[in-house]
């Protein structure tokens, strides 16, 4: 049990998928303009990522095995695309505005490198099924956490007196850098 907890904390803070692995930067910059959108994006990604890491573990272990390992990336992408397609339909039905707001970033979860990266890392780290799930969940929570934090900061920055050349994305980039530096403080928290 303690093992799983450490895994979770480790992926959320220490090896944060965005700020220390530098994966998934595209939605991190793209959908962080508004807090509400960022929260929904975080939720959608969490759903997709957790499911994807579980499903891809099963496929890798029971379907592909050693001899078909060259199909790994291909089959993972297919699975992720399927889950994202499902999520897309679900969101379109339940919240059309959110669907419109997430726009291109929703289908782009498919190509979110974090979403493909975590199942691949699972294989490399030789996680078992439960560990894979936790690793996926932790990575997604870490992603959601920094996305929401970053969106909140960007909302305040929107109203701030930034010098004109720094307005908008430029100041957001600097903020992201500072956040990454801040997350370096977690290094060494766990092993």
């Amino acid at each position, binding site marked *: 049990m303690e093992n799983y907890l450490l895994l979770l904390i480790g992926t959320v803070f220490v090896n944060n998928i965005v700020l220390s692995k530098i994966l998934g930067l595209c939605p991190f910059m793209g959908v962080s303009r508004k807090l509400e959108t960022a929260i929904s994006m975080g939720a959608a990604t969490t759903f997709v990522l957790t499911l994807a890491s579980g499903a891809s573990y099963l496929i890798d272990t029971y379907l592909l095995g050693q001899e078909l390992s060259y199909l790994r990336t291909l089959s993972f992408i297919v699975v992720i695309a399927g889950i994202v397609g499902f999520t897309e339909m679900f969101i379109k039905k339940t919240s059309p505005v959110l669907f419109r707001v997430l726009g291109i970033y929703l289908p782009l979860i498919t190509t979110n490198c974090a979403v493909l990266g975590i199942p691949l890392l699972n294989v490399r780290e030789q996680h078992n099924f439960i560990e894979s799930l936790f690793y996926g969940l932790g990575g997604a929570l870490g992603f959601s956490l920094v996305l929401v934090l970053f969106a909140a900061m960007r909302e*305040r920055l929107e*109203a701030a*007196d930034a010098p004109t050349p720094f307005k908008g994305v430029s100041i957001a980039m600097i903020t992201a850098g500072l956040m990454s530096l801040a997350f370096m403080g977690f290094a060494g928290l766990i092993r």
Partner: protein
Amino acid sequence: MSRKLFTFNGGVHPDGHKAVSNATPIRAMSLLPHYVVPMRQHIGAPARPMVSIGDQVLRGQMIGAAEGYVSTAVHAPTSGRVVAIDARAVPHPSGLFDLAVVIEADGEDQALEFQPLDWRNLDPSALRNRIRDMGLAGLGGAVFPSFIKLNPGAQKIHTLILNGAECEPWITCDDRLMRERAAEIVRGIEVMRHALGCRTTLIGIEDNKPEALAAMRAAVPADMEVVSVPTLYPGGGGKQLTYTLTGVETPTGGRSTDVGIQVFNMGTAYSLYRSVELGEPLISRVVTVTGHVAQAGNFDVRIGTPLKDLLAAAGGALPGASGEIVGGPMMGFDLMDSAAPVTKAVNCLIVKNPKLFPTKPIELSCIRCGECARACPADLQPFEMYWYSRAKDFGRAQSYNLFDCIECGCCSFVCPSHIPLVDYFRFAKAEIWEREREKYSADQARIRHEFKTFRLEREKQEKADKFAKAAEKSREAAASGADVVADPDAEKKKAILQAALERAKKAKEAVTPKNTDNLPPMVQKEIDEIEARRSKVEGNTESQARHE
């Protein structure tokens, strides 16, 4: 007998400057040649003028009737002749003009026959109607029509609070009124108590007015309580005084009536006494003239007295004066035009000089020190509201409960960066209201447009039905061999239309449009474009007409 008092959060201690004007008794003013009586002196719809130019009016005669529910009447301050009904300078922060009735006094000051009211045996609803016609509105500054406040409505009012705190610096009109006319105030309070049917009556007076406290204590009957409250601005704010006296907080977005408490100003109680017991409508009020003037003090002023005449009655401004403030220094505004008259809302006129009122220092950046939040008596976070108001992010500003701001000015007063926070809040509130109005009119337009579309559809359908019927009939007629006669009126109608067009053309040549003289080149250009477009369309319609 001492009551447990509650202390609200925040508040500030500005210099009182009360002694400048509270030493001398209330003075009467001599009759002036002209009075300017605005129709909008209260919150709500302006009164509707009931007189026309040239009419003779008597003192106390109604010259503007209440229009709509939230409104109240306006009366002639003296006898004389109505010489103008037009837009005049009014005491308003914008400096804009507003509809007013100008009365030329005849010097007789002849009054209507005032009928005292037997209020104890009067139905409360009849009493309220009477008070409405007497033009009573809250004299503390908000000028909300009093008859509405005297309607307990669905909520039971258990406590009546009389506000004699007068927490704004410089102002002393309620102070003097309590010292000199305590007995009359108490009789006015009795009318209020009767109308509201409440049990408890509390009279809150700040402890920097010991004479007023003593006078009121001597005048009240046993079932009213005069309470000395600590001097702390804005202790006289309705919600703040309610909390100080009862410990009851007014809910967000609500009024004190939601918790069964009604608050009235001292001046209102006095005017209520005059209008009910003497039958004299609200045609005068006590106004403090203070600051950099020769003889500061309080005056019993007729409503409609131009402020420059009031200033002259106080001996005029001393040399070195730098403008006037209407109201107190915390919540008042700079007077734009001294021809503006005293209205029911004007309680004080302060003459500024650079020493008493130095120019505001330069506005610096917010350092988020939180002083404003500590000083805010409404428990808000002004620095957050400021951040979003300044960036014009009104939705977020509102999410910090912007509309609970009472605009008391404590935050601006304590701000070490000299940020005029209240100005930002007023700006944000005005913009939000504007948006609400626009939203409303857009919704109206949408409904009307949808109805029009629907109506056109319906008419088309009806026409089609009619046509089908007629076609059937004519087919029947043709079958029976009768001729279809062409409409003989059609030619005649065309001729009439042509004649009307000719006439109109001539009339238009004779009348030059008055709004196209002296136009800036940009507007002229725009007009030319419109003309071009129009002639094109006209050409089209003409050719169409020829086709037909």
